[in-house]
């Protein structure tokens, strides 16, 4: 019966028009209600109803790596550190942030000593000790667990040795249990006493505290994990240490959080958070309009209509991500810098934001996004859209008016939005360069395989910050043969700069080195940054203090849910 799926694109314009119509109709409704901020609804009405677009893969922090998973682990677990709204690191389970001055960071930058809050407890009432953090990090590094983000922690003494104990595909090893436990014990994290945990690094790392704020390093309770195995994350088994506890997880339907009675931090105002898994954007939007959800992301097709409606429900949230045109510098014709320059000049970024994104974004020519160290608003201004200059660059590359330009494939994940992207890019390059580009739409895993295997010519991809520091944006993306280098860029000058930066202890000098490295990739048009993403949200007027930070996951405000409350209606 499902042959209908095939005809979806044919119906798309109709559905989009319909959704836009709903949007216009919606604007007359709820936003007239003005709520007195001081008046909080009674506890039985402190229920926040949110949405995720599907069942998460897991809520085990060590196994999480998507935005949805990150968003669910934040209310349930608390790491040593977290971020304030300015993205400054603040203590969470730790008593304070270690620095050189307070002795938390050793002079050589290799030892971090973190004090844990004395009264901290698990949601089953057991005390949290330094041993819990030691156990949790070693568990994440266990090669048998398969933690996806754990390689970030290879800078800790012995971490890589333990996580790669089974060798590589080409050179496999078969360590016995005793060897594995010996390697595990050598991992450089130790409990000095019940409330002091010490980390030993191989070399200084200016972003190390960020790693202790990342979900992979959240503590988990050994007793529970060992008792229930893979089922420890089910409701009833789950124990966490965050402001909320897992009350219910009806798979494929919803997940429900309630306040953790043993949480010693700021008490949540909400008595319940219900997160429904609704895959369809239009369905979620209808649910919001019907009053079945309190917060919803605006469907891309309705972004402009809703932003223009001046609805009191509307909020615009920027996050730390940059979308860029990734041209494969290793293959023709993009091995020619002039061709890359021509492409960088030929795409009208404002038209892209306006037409394809319906306004939900901010055009940029710079790589590191605004809101974090390393952002440079003036970078790449020479690549601002200019059709004349673009044609000129292409002529200098040897293709006047696009003559003899080879066939180029633009790779894109097959989705409704990306159909527009593909059409837009094809159109721009045809119009501004006289070049014919064909879009190939593939499913997301095929895209992932092709893109990360550098088997693409040109595509649009984003990078989103794991932590707000330039070392998350440059060495791994543009270093020679680096893991996420999908431009194929290779420059000894760049490699030297980021290497020097990593070793530099002076913050100002370090940032300057990263700035030089970033300038190189932009000036050589290695990639062509297009825009910084913005999320358009609709929030019911009775939801107060939903405070988003640029590092939030799939649910905006996920790191400040203790502050959120429902106003009396």
């Amino acid at each position: 019966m499902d042959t209908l799926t095939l005809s979806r694109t044919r119906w798309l314009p109709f559905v989009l028009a319909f959704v836009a119509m709903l949007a216009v109709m919606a604007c007359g409704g709820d936003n007239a209600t003005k709520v007195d901020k001081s008046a909080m609804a009674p506890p039985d009405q402190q229920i926040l109803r949110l949405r995720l677009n599907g069942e998460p893969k897991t809520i085990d922090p060590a196994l999480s790596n998507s935005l949805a998973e990150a968003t669910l682990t934040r209310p349930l677990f608390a790491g040593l550190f977290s971020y304030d709204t300015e993205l400054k690191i603040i203590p969470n389970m730790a008593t304070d942030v270690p620095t050189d001055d307070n002795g938390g960071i050793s002079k050589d930058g290799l030892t971090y000593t973190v004090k844990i809050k004395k009264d901290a407890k698990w949601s089953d009432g057991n005390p949290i000790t330094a041993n819990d953090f030691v156990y949790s990090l070693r568990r994440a590094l266990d090669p048998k667990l398969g933690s996806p983000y754990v390689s970030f922690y290879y800078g800790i003494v012995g971490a890589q040795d333990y996580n790669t104990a089974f060798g590589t595909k080409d050179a496999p090893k078969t360590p016995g249990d005793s060897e594995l436990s010996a390697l595990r014990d050598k991992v450089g994290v130790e409990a000095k006493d019940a409330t002091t945990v010490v980390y030993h690094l191989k070399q200084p790392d200016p972003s190390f505290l960020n790693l202790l704020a990342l979900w992979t390093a959240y503590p988990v309770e050994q007793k529970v994990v060992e008792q229930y195995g893979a089922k420890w994350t089910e409701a009833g088994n789950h124990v966490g240490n965050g402001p909320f506890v897992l009350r219910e997880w009806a798979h494929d339907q919803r997940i429900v959080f309630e306040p953790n009675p043993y949480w010693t931090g700021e008490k949540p105002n909400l008595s319940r958070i219900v997160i429904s898994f609704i895959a369809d954007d239009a369905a979620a939007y209808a649910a919001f309009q019907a009053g079945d959800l309190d917060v919803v992301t605006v469907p891309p097709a309705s972004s402009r209509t809703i932003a223009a409606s001046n609805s009191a429900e509307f909020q615009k949230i920027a996050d730390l991500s940059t979308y860029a045109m990734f041209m494969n510098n290793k293959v023709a014709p993009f091995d020619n810098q002039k061709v890359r320059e021509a492409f960088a000049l030929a795409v009208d970024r404002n038209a892209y934001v306006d037409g394809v994104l319906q306004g939900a974004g901010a055009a940029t020519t710079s790589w590191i996004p605004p809101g974090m160290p390393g952002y440079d608003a003036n970078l790449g201004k020479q690549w601002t859209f200019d059709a004349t200059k673009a044609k000129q660059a292409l002529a200098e590359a040897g293709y006047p008016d696009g003559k003899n330009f080879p066939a180029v494939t633009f790779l894109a994940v097959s989705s409704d939005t990306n159909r527009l992207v593909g059409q837009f890019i094809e159109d721009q390059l045809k119009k501004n360069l006289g070049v014919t580009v064909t879009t190939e739409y593939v499913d997301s895993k095929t895209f992932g395989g092709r893109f990360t295997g550098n088997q693409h010519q040109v595509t649009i991809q984003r990078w989103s910050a794991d932590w707000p520091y330039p070392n998350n944006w440059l060495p791994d993306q543009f270093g020679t043969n680096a893991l996420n280098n999908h431009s194929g860029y290779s420059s000894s000058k760049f490699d030297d700069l980021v290497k020097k930066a990593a070793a530099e202890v002076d913050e100002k000098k370090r940032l300057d080195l990263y700035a030089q490295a970033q300038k190189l990739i932009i000036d050589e048009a290695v990639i062509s940054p297009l825009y910084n993403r913005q999320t358009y949200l609709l929030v019911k007027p009775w939801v107060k203090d939903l405070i988003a930070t640029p590092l939030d996951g799939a649910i905006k405000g996920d790191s400040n849910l203790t502050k959120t409350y429902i106003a009396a209606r």
Partner: protein
Amino acid sequence: MAAYALRRLLWLAPALLFISLVTFALMHSVQGGPWDDDRRLPPSVTENLDRKYGLDKPLYAQYFDFVTGALHGDLGISYARQDKPVTAIILSGFKVTAVLGVLALAVAVVAGVGLGVLSALNRNRWPDYAGVLFASMGSAVPAFVLGIFLVYIFGVQLHWLPTFGWDTRGGLLPGWLPRWQQLVLPVVTLSALPAAYLARITRASLLEVLRQDYIRTARSKGLGGGSVLFRHAMRNAAIPIVTVLGPVIAGLVTGSFIIEQLFSVPGTGRLFVQSVNARDYGLIMGTTLFYAAVIVVVNLAVDITYAFIDPRIRYR
């Protein structure tokens, strides 16, 4: 008859084995694996994951492991769903899909056959035109358009029905059926297309039969309209209807991706698409084999039904 049914069921085993082999081969030959995302994981990490799930073994060994497991009722685990057993995921989804499918089938049969009969008996008069209009609309409007339209009218505007969900705690039949309010929209949306289809087939088939000589004979013997219709005409007109019911039932009980997606119904329809998109190998194999088995069994049931309706059909 029993021997025939048994023989058909015995054929299920080699058929499933063949399907599993083809699926396995296809699944591993497409580009992109379960750990391929827009952000690349280090080889050390993906190798640990491969080892955890046995993907480091040669393909033939993986297939052998799968078949051995399947023979013991173990279809493996899902990488994308908390390592849950595939059988448990499919069974819990099937419970929902089957309930929804049976309800939609009942609605489709009653509405579709009813309208078809009404159309045929009132040929070229307004009930016929209304029926044909419904049948054309029902087959022309895709479920996701109809669904969102109904949600908008009854959920958003009138606030009569919830916009999403399938919550069986404290429903009509706890553990099986949600509140009736949650049932209406998915059932109606899901049944629209099969109802339209059945209405068309019923109308055509009944018109054909009503022209036959034996109907005229029955009428001339002075039999009443109801008796002619139900005892003589419908019995023969039912054969094409039963034939199309086979695929209709198979479609309904394996679940609809669109309906489940739109109304957030936790059934099996979404599993297949989601598992392929995620390259969740265990779940791909599980859902494919499950679908295959359901379709074979439903088709067998349809064939057996023929024998009851039409005495001319005999199976050996």
